[in-house]
């Protein structure tokens, strides 16, 4: 949890803002901006910030169409790489119009169970929204959150956690 220190500063800043501005909307924006800075800071091996960029766990819906996208801690914002993956999935689904899919949203083990169920649902919906903007009808997509219940990597380290924060596109038929 290298990020936790940065988050605390965020929170201090938020509390001060709260007092000064008394404007919740502004605070939410400030907080998104700050955490975006935090995640784009460093790149190391298979992770950028704390988003997984490797291919160890990735499977393919078809040749060149990865089945999953990854997220930063506590985030459901799609990265540039995630959007590229989802555009490939959308192109594949447009060509194969009979395929329906389930988007399975997951969280890492470093959060409370119930919040993680909600977070998994939010992540899968981020992927769903993006697929829909690329022409995939919502009635071909269902969403299923597993929270932290189905990790792909059983490790207790930042790399394992980054692999587990994911939304996986699974063919339903």
């Amino acid at each position: 949890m290298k990020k936790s220190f940065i988050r605390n500063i965020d929170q201090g800043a938020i509390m001060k803002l709260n007092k000064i501005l008394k404007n919740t909307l502004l605070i939410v924006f400030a907080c998104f901006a700050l955490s975006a800075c935090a995640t784009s800071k460093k790149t190391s091996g298979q992770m950028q910030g704390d988003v997984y960029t490797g291919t160890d766990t990735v499977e393919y819906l078809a040749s060149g169409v990865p089945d999953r996208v990854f997220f930063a801690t506590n985030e459901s914002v799609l990265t540039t790489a995630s959007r590229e993956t989802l555009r490939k999935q959308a192109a594949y689904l447009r060509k194969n119009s009979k395929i329906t899919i389930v988007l399975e949203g997951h969280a890492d083990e470093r959060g409370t169970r119930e919040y993680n169920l909600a977070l998994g649902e939010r992540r899968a919906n981020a992927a769903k929204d993006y697929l829909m903007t690329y022409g995939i009808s919502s009635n071909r997509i269902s969403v299923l959150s597993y929270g932290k219940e189905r990790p792909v990597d059983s490790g207790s380290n930042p790399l394992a956690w980054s692999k587990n924060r994911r939304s996986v596109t699974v063919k339903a038929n």
Partner: protein
Amino acid sequence: MRILIKIIIFLILIPSKSFGLIEVDITRGNLDPLPIAVSPLSIDQNSRQNFEKILKKENIGDEISKIIEVNLKTSGLFNPLNKDAFLQAPDIANLKPRFEDWNLIKAQALITGKVSYVDEKLRVEFRLWDVLAGKEMVALAFTTVPTNWRRVGHIITDKVYQRLTGEKGYFDTRIIYVAEEGPKTKRIKKLAIMDQDGANNKFLTLGNELVLTPRFNPTSQMVTYLSYFRNLPRVYLLDIETGTQEVVGDFPGMTFAPRFSPDGKKIIMSFAKDGNSEIYTMDLENRIVEKITNHPSIDTSPSFSPDGKFICFNSDRSGYQQIYVMRSDGSKVKRISFGKGLYGTPVWSPRGDLIAFTKLHKGKFYIGVMRTDGSGERLLTENFYQEAPSWSPNGRVLIFYRETKTDDKGEGFSAKLWSIDLTGYNERMVKTPTDASDPSWSSLLSN
């Protein structure tokens, strides 16, 4: 006499009053538990033979007194003395204790009693004695079916605990939890129930589908939980006496994080749709569904105050997971957690004065309590991972689960139940036959 009781209560309460720090208190063992002698319940030859036939226990009087001893010891407030030092025979002690003898082994309180077989039932009488004053404090007799013998031990403990501490006990209770087996990536989870002391463990589901977060109805033997039956995560209602179950409400998406209202008539839970989780209630009698929160953030882990007027819950509307309190109609939402870190799983104490929570700060997880306005935050225990506190029905003890860190190969994972006293003392692992998580404490089964 009255002064003496006061002194005893004073002795028990003093340690809890010397805490009030905001930091985690990890110093243990200052507590001075009350020395108590549990004389084996006496039993006549005929009753003994009858119970041996029915229950396959050589001496049911001994067995019941063992349950009482274990309960008292586990509470951390009592120190049951070694029976080898007892001078008086159980049957005579129950008639009239020789207080000098008990005083000699430093017992301050003494429990005596008698079990007998009457009309195919188990009749028990017991007495609690104040050794220093030489007086009887409690005398009670009751009759039950012989198979209830373990509960007899728990009920006696509850009476003793209540007389000596002034608080209701929590021993004649059960715990529902999720039993876990298999590798971390393919965990098999079943609902399980056991007595508070770990006896009578039973599995309630087969493990064919993922089940999570069972919670007791505070007024009956009903349970609400989350099941992935047919891969549709939904809140279910289960009657643990009959085994019948049903889906709660008709929601077009995942429902989760269920809990009962204090009167047991409603279920409060989250419903997730289009990336947004909101809190809803459903009335179990008229099936009316009400939406309580209305915010684009995640709103989950709701828990009612014991008077039903307020709800505490978990929301990330500030950008991060924090604890909020609102009126039960969803109005007057107010953030109450302002310490460093993230806060989750708020649960209102049955006494009404505290909210227990999980906190994540700098990569560590804490179980803590705060007042209902967020003041007086006190962290009870720190670990690599732990969450989901559930209160004992008297609001004195918290049970939660803890997971271990895996090694470099991703092995060595385990999940266990733990309990801790509200003061931060007396942290104990609660033994379960398999790995375990998501514990929920029942109300007292009797009285």
